[in-house]
């Protein structure tokens, strides 16, 4: 194979395979993290039987889903019933194609590899388009199941997702105007040259986007389509085994995609905090700051657990750790700070921010009750859409006045 073939066919194929292989693994463990965090919030232990502290639980779950009987209701439309999970999962995975996880390309075996699969100049439009496609899977699933509960769930879902597409799109326009581009890489670079993350000027846009995105991914407090208390399990009531796993996969992939988009559009993607302040350049190697912080906080938390002193020592330990980390960074002790590899440090900050938003999802789930169908529509149409339009107008005026 000549160099051209490898660069244009082999490497992208490899990237796609890596993404499709790694994301389900991440999701499996994201689910374990979700259960652990929820367990912590709900004063219980969460899984801890399979493997050390339940570390192998996701694998056991995946195996269970694989070998579970795959049933189809007698009156269901077989072809559509089988297609629905596929229609849902493919757009979810396809959205990963335009998500850059770091800024600088890296070298491998003499080839330059980009930390993104593709950097198209209409990435945002692509994302909006592809995420709308996933709704078809849900509608088809609800219809093909030939069950009333599934049908109600599917109807709710389609109404909900179509309503929330609108504020979602409007919220993105503000960012697009500031960055002057719809390419994900360009948007992050625009934030670097602007010197601050777009969450500053686009605070309203961020709120509109994040709330709509939570609704779009059907998560608490907007999990009406699968509201178990009312509709049993909504559109996937009749699904079992791998077909059910596909819906599950799609939901969690969407969560990751949405968190990544929030990170890229509003929180500077792979950029460190305050990307233009040279004095903080040591933050490029983020872990030298975070490892002491987490270690200090963990030790403090353990002391708190023993002594029953609330969270006092945890905060003290965290502060001490942060100070120690900052000291190591500023003085460049052991040459740690200057040893940063750009692609790695970019991926580090990116995954840290994405993890934070994924944590928010779990936090919501532990805190909020569920909206009612009409209230959800009211929130979307009466609040989010006007607010996001206001944001577009405001951003437009500001851009115009500055130019």
């Amino acid at each position, binding site marked *: 194979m000549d160099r051209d073939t490898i660069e244009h066919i082999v490497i992208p194929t490899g990237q796609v395979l890596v993404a499709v292989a790694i994301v389900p693994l991440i999701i499996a463990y994201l689910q374990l993290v979700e259960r652990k965090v*929820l367990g912590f*919030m*709900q*004063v*219980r232990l969460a899984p801890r039987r399979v493997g050390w502290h339940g570390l192998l639980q996701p694998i056991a779950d995946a195996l269970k889903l694989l070998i579970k009987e795959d049933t189809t209701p007698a009156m269901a439309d077989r072809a559509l019933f089988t297609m629905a999970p596929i229609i849902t999962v493919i757009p979810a995975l396809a959205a990963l194609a335009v998500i850059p996880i770091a800024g600088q390309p890296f070298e491998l075996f003499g080839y330059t590899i980009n930390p993104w699969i593709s950097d198209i100049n209409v990435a945002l439009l692509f994302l909006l388009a592809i995420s709308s496609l996933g709704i078809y899977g849900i509608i088809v699933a609800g219809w093909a199941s030939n069950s*009333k*509960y599934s049908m*109600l769930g599917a109807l*709710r879902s389609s109404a909900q997702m179509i309503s929330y597409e609108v504020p979602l799109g409007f919220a993105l326009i503000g960012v697009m105007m500031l960055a002057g581009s719809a390419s994900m890489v360009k948007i992050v670079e625009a934030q670097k040259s602007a010197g601050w993350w777009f969450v500053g000027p686009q605070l309203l846009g961020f709120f509109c986007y994040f709330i709509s995105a939570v609704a779009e991914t059907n998560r*608490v*407090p907007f*999990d*009406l389509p699968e*509201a*178990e*208390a*009312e*509709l*049993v399990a909504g559109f996937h009531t009749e699904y079992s085994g791998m077909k059910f796993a596909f819906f599950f996969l799609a939901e969690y992939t969407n969560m990751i995609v949405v968190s990544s988009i929030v990170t890229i559009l509003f929180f500077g993607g792979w950029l460190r905090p305050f990307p233009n302040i040279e004095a903080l350049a040591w933050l490029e190697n983020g872990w030298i700051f975070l490892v002491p912080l987490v270690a200090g906080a963990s030790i403090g938390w353990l002391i708190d657990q023993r002594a029953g002193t609330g969270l006092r020592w945890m905060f003290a330990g965290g502060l001490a750790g942060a100070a120690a980390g900052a000291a190591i960074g500023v003085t460049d002790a052991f040459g740690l700070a200057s040893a940063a590899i750009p692609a790695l440090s970019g991926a580090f900050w990116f995954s840290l921010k994405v993890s934070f938003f994924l944590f928010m999802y779990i936090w919501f*789930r*532990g*805190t*909020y*009750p*569920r*909206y*009612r*169908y*009409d*209230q959800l529509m009211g929130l979307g149409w009466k609040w989010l859409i006007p607010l996001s339009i206001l944001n577009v107008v405001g951003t437009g005026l500001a851009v115009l006045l500055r130019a």
Partner: protein
Amino acid sequence: MFRTEEMDINMGPQHPSTHGVLRLKLTLEGEVISDIRPVIGYLHRGVEKLCEHRTYPMIEPLTDRLDYVAAISENLGYCGAVEKLMGVQVPPRAQYIRVILAELQRVASHLLWLGTHALDLGAMTVFFYTFRERELILDLFEAFCGARLTYNSMRIGGLYEDVPAGWFDRVRHFIDIFPSREKEYEDLLTVNRIFKGRTVGVGILKPEDGIALGVSGPTLRASGVNYDVRVAQPYSSYEQFQFDVPLGANGDTYDRYLVRMEEMRQSCRIIRQALERMPQGEVRAKVPKYIKPPAGEVYHVVESPRGEQGFYIVQVAGEMPYRMRFRAPSFVNLQALPTMCKGQMIADVVAVIGSIDIVLGDCDR
């Protein structure tokens, strides 16, 4: 141009939010309910008939299985009915311990209600918090009578025996920590916009409808009707305790929530008074070994966590009742469901069922 039709949908008996084996036949226009018919009887065990072939002490374990979430209230009501029939005076210490048990049971039952009600509305965490405290109460019951669900905790004429050593201190510890725990639930729910959105103005029961339908308990008091059996017809020396009867204003789901939350606080208040003024002495009156009440009829009501729990006994002769009849608050309160739900949405049905707090074991008997 378009043809619209109503959809019939079966909710239950194996639905996650009908709290047991209740079946609802819903007629929907979209998501709006145009008709709702509860179908009951899936848990019918014929307890009333069974009682006709049991001696009086043998009936008490059966009463545990009526309202299994608040078995002690059933025990209290049943024993009270037989004692009234026989004219037995229960010793004051036994009466006070019965009050403590019944009020702890009220808190435990309301905790179960709160957890499942919040779970129905999608708030998962409250459920685990309430079960943490309910566990403490069940431990107290276990220490007292050895059982955690079906207690068979009382005897005709008093109690089987006095409480174990240190039990009162454990109760005191519980009512000391409970207010701060209750605040945790309230932090998650009372001022939560979504929770209020789901409950305020939902499932309104007008006071006149409530009285006409025979509704009782917190469900009726949330509509503003001041009727509490503990005050209206005191039993087991309730007249000696100071407590408020919380009342609602609008009769909606949110008011029923607030009333029950306040009832838990009042229960703690009653328990505290009982602990402070605990009389000394026997815990069991002298009753014959073979209980043969004189012929006659008796009706005795107690305020169970769900409402007015009545026991009607017809005694002709011998050791067994001629006829036993239970007035089940869940059964009576459930018939208010269609009144409360018409014109609401399907998601409101689970909120309203949760707020009536039915137990199907009680309802179907």
